[in-house]
Structures are given as structure tokens and as C-alpha cells.
């Protein structure tokens, strides 16, 4: 279940527009019209990107009157980051073992 949703979350990030939207929202919530401004793409296409982000858990939005405001969801960022941190720890440990092994068993004798 959780793996499924992480999969979806990373897929959502394959697109540079969507990554930029999250980047913008990290600085604070923004209205859809405000968000769409810098991208120079049609609103329908932009709304499709927002829907992907919302469905994959990266953002949430709320409508007040005629304005829809988007917020980033930090728990999603944490889940993605935590997974990668775990992968990183595995590679760090593996590389440490390689370095130790080579230095102990394969390095030429120190002339000193």
C-alpha cells in the first residue's frame, strides 16, 4: 500500500513543471492562477498537472469563493526523502566495506 503510493509519488515527479510547482509551493501556499502564471502553458494543461500532484499526495488544494489555493504536503516529501536516505545508507556502508577491504588486503605495502 505504502509502496504503491511511493511509486505513484515518484512518477508524478517525472515532469519538470510538476517539480517546479512543488518548488514554488515550498515557499508558501498559492492560488492556482498565481501558480500557473510563470509556466506559459494553457490552464487546462496546467490543471492536469495539479491533478496528478494532488492524486499522488504531493499537494492538497481548497476552494474558497472562486479562488482555489494549493498547499504542499510535507509528509509526502518526508516519505520520499526517507526512502532515499535508506538507500543511501546501504550504499555508504557498502562503500565503507570496500574501502576497508582494499586498504587492508589489496593496497601495496607502505614504503615507510
Amino acid at each position, binding site marked *: 500500500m505504502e509502496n504503491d503510493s511511493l511509486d505513484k509519488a515518484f512518477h508524478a515527479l517525472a515532469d519538470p513543471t510538476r517539480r517546479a510547482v512543488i518548488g514554488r509551493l515550498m515557499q508558501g501556499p498559492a492560488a492556482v492562477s498565481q501558480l500557473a502564471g510563470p509556466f506559459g502553458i494553457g490552464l487546462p494543461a496546467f490543471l492536469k498537472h495539479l491533478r496528478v500532484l494532488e492524486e499522488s499526495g504531493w499537494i492538497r488544494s481548497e476552494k474558497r469563493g472562486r479562488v482555489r489555493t494549493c498547499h504542499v504536503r510535507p509528509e509526502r516529501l518526508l516519505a520520499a526523502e526517507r526512502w532515499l*536516505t535508506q538507500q543511501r545508507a546501504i550504499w555508504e556502508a557498502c562503500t565503507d566495506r570496500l574501502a576497508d577491504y582494499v586498504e587492508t588486503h589489496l593496497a601495496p605495502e607502505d614504503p615507510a
Partner: protein
Amino acid sequence: MNALQAELAISRLIKAPPAAVWRAWAEREHFERWWIPHPIECRAVKLDLRPGGGFETHMREDGGEWRPHVEGCFLAVEPEERLVFTTMLSEGWRPSEPWLALTAVITLAAEDGGTRYSARVMHKTPEDARKHDEMGFEEGWGTAIGQLGEVARILASARAP
């Protein structure tokens, strides 16, 4: 580290020349000594260092049964300089369905009388992360909790064009 692209990069200065580091990768009896953490035993079933060559390791604990660990295929092999493998393909570039989809680019460069060893690891998706855990790769799992700040920094630099 870039969480948005599920990519990580690490680097070490190893106090031995590139030729020695290469042997630790290329020669089975050396490779098996560091690839998997003790006390888990490692067996390099395939370590065929050429493009399209198979890369397959098995592991076992407490003298139990050998179980699959990594299965992949080498993509690029430049002795003492660069090694690229992926788990998305098996021996002979045959497509596969790995439990953890990644491509790793390992580079070696002479530096200060030693070797600058770098690994860049690109992941497809984080699916099956839990399976990874079950397979005994427990070092690091659950111990390091990511910092939101790092992601925030990356995201902040990913502005609209």
C-alpha cells in the same frame, strides 16, 4: 542527493591505487568479502565484467539456504576507470523485473596517491522497499531519518523556467 529523481551519489577517497580497487570488484574471491555485510555470506554467482555480462550475487545467513540478492547486467566496463550495471536487465541484456530497479555508475580516478571512488545510483521507483528490508539488508534501515530541509533546498532551486 536528489529525492525528486530518486538518485543518490556518494564518494570516498580510498588509500590504494585504482588497480587495487578494481581487483576488489573484478576478482570474485575479493568481491565476495565486502559486497554484503558480515555475518551474511556472499557468493558471486556471475561476475562477468564485460558489457552484457551477468552480475548475480546470492547470500545466506547462519549456513542456511542461499537466496538471491542482486541480479543484473553490466553495461559498461572500463578497467580501473568505470563500471556501470543495471538491475533492469539480466545477463545478455535480457529484460527483467527486478525487486529493486536501479542503475549504478561506479567511477575510479587516481587522486592523492589513492583512488577517488564515486557511485551514482539512479532508482526507477521505490517500490518493494519493504522486500529489501526482508532480505536482510538491515544496515541503515530505519536508522537514518531524512531531513525535510534537504528536500526543501532542492525544491526551492527547482523553480519555473
